[in-house]
């Protein structure tokens, strides 16, 4: 598994996210209240809303367009909604976030 450096954890707001631009499209890198880091393809499975702009709580993010709630661990839509967005492995070492693209 090859790791790409994203940047300092401190640059991602707590209960927020920053966008990582890649040649295959934007990746949303999230930081939870407990400083866990998750990464999702920045497209909601519903109408492709940018998940990076949603409200983060627990290990979930609510899409800003129509409030679909995506589980950041699995990338799956929660509740009766059905759909999935791609997830990426992440790790934090010495306060720096890495992602496996």
């Amino acid at each position, binding site marked *: 598994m090859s790791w*790409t*450096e*994203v*940047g300092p954890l401190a*640059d*991602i*707001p*707590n*209960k*927020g996210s*920053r*966008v*990582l*631009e*890649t*040649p295959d499209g*934007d990746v949303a*890198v999230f930081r939870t*209240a407990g400083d866990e880091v998750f990464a999702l393809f920045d497209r909601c499975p519903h*109408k*492709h*809303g*940018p998940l990076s*702009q*949603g*409200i*983060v*709580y*627990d290990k979930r993010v*609510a899409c*800003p*367009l*129509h*409030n679909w*709630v995506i589980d950041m661990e699995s990338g799956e839509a929660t*509740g*009766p909604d059905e759909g999935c967005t791609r997830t990426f492995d992440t790790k934090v070492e010495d306060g720096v976030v890495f992602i496996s*693209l």
Partner: protein
Amino acid sequence: MKEKLVLIGNGMAGVRTLEELLKLAPEKYDITVFGEEPYGNYNRIMLSPVLAGEKTIDEIMINDMQWYEDNNITLHAGKKITKIDRVNRQVLADDGTVEEYDRLLLATGSRPFMLPVPGADLPGVISFRDIKDVDEMLSTSKTHKKAVVIGGGLLGLEAANGLMLQGMDVTVVHISGVLMNQQLDETASDLMLEELKGKGLNFLMNHATESISGDGRVEKLHFKDGSDIDADLVVMAVGIRPNVELADSAGIHCDRGIVVDDTMQTFDPTIYSVGECVQHRNQTFGLVAPLFEQAKVCANHLAKMGIARYISSVTSTKLKVTGIDLFSAGDFNGDEETEDLVFKDAARHVYKKLVIKNDRLIGVVLYGDTVDGTWYFQLMRDATDVSDIRENMLFGQHHLGDSGHGAANSTDNLPDDAEICGCNGVCKGDITKAIAEHSLFTLDEVKAHTKASASCGSCTGLVEQILASSLGTDFNDTPSKKAMCGCTDLSHDEVKNAIKAQDLKNIPQLMEALEWKNADGCHSCRPALNYYMLSSWPNEYVDDPQSRFINERVHANIQKDGTYSVVPRIWGGVTNPGELRAIADISEKYDVPTVKITGGQRIDLLGVKKDDLPKMWADLSDAGFVSGHAYGKSLRTVKTCVGSEWCRFGTQDSTGLGIKLEKMTWGSWTPHKFKIAVSGCPRNCAEATIKDIGVVCVDSGYELHVGGNGGIKVRATDFLCKVATEEEAMEYTAAYMQLYREEGHYLERTAPWIERVGLNHVQALVVDDAENRKRLAERFYKSQENSQNDPWAEHAAKYKENYIPIKQVS
């Protein structure tokens, strides 16, 4: 080792409790269920459609055997528990099965009350309670002709209707003169009687049964007045009695039912009870909605979260009996101190009665047309002062001056492909299918599964109607108290009061003090809490951007493709060539694809990329513009007409006043968006009468109109008062806006707020009480001191990194 939970009673209340428990703590218990009937859990409410031949048993199963297997629940179907051994914590079944428990849940339900008359034990005399009864009715209907149903309540009428549809000649015997006397008054009962007679049912009202006779099988029913009637089948539906014998024999305190406290605990702390077998605060239960609320509370305690309390309060009943819509709530009979509003149209089979006491609605009966049931119930629950709407309220909510969503009033006659939810394109058939397939009971469940009424909400009434007719006889739609969201059982008002009462200064502190179920809340409560903090502690609370919806976090409106729109503030809608030139230049510089004039007389620059926002704002700022807050739950725009400066009809300087009002109110956060308009004469070109507050200038001064909006449900304003000077118009506006900021629920616009609290209330605090008006206005000015900093300039200077990617990788 896991603790053992044993459930006695495999019915709707008990199994619902298990479902709620599995949601909260799926791994906590080894669960064992005992049920007397040899089936999984079925929807008892739907036995009537089975009897009527509209549904089969398979279609009314809620949890089939597979469900128990999937959830690792051991089901003993067909086994009756005969003894609870509390000392050794064991239950014993009639076949010798012994099961130990750490926690025991009693959901033994109720049984039909059988009249203790001679002959009641003859073959052919049955009740209407379970699948066995339905089977017997169906088989009897094939071989016999005459059926008598004792009891003119909900269940009796359903049984009578079903037997009639199976081809029997049916007579309903009722002890009083009023059918369904728990739900209906005399007039509604008379209408119902007439309609049911028209369908072919026979009635013997005011008849008391004395005995039943027959040779080896029921043949005759004898009444106290000496008369009698032939009968091949007698169905007793005269009420239910909680099943307490098992609990009682184990020494658990029982009265009419098994006595439980607010946590659904019995007098033995290891034993809980829910459903029709319980007695809570001296009340017993027969409808499904309270049982589900109990299930939720009980599951919370079984999961050892320990925060829920069951509070039974005023409930409404929305019923569909043999195809007739009924709604009743509260004290619908009234007394000497009440006044009745009555509407009756016998030809259309419509009857409405509202009971009013001290200007408050305290009871409702609706027959035939129940569209407005939910609205009336809300007026009751909120104890709204109805004196202003009294003239028209009998005709329904859509007669109160708003034209509403132009949808049908009744869903029954609509075809399956009729569109119910225009926002999400959901048809009637989609909803009925989802209700059947997923066993949905509540509006929230239908919303989650179909998205119907999940966007603008204007079709909520229609969805509720479909739910009511699909669920059949027992649908209770309106919770007695509406929780803020799934994270808490508290309502908006309770949360707001707690902020002040407990001196809660930030969101984490609030969530801890009020025992929020999810540690950091959800996308629904966090923005609300952030607003309540801001409005409760102005100039003190530090705004939490992560608890704001994206539009307010980045001060621009997100569009469907993830780009944003930028709307600079143009005071009162008055601009000049220099400003327009600057906007034109900036639009070209950033390749803005669409430039549009908004409904509020501003200019909308659409399709801006997020990382361009701070740069564009810096340029707009240099040209003298500030944010237009077109994205916020805040003052949007003050729309004006040209007024006395140019217009030959203008009576006052409406543009000038509009600009002053906008300079006073911009930057203020409100529960929902807030729009103002000023018209220079009663021709009202600025459309001030559909704004949150509108000023209509007249020759002698300024009329102030409040609580209007366009949008989903158009609502024209109510007239607040007339003032003589511009200064007064401004002070009243500030005071009114502050009252709304302090009292409104988050995402509640002024129109529903005023309908909730009543115009009188607003007039009393803003118009009649000059001292209070001054205090409100003072609080408004005070909180504005720190909120009129342009967020665009601030973000362009300080927070640019929020708008750009953290990194680009190639």
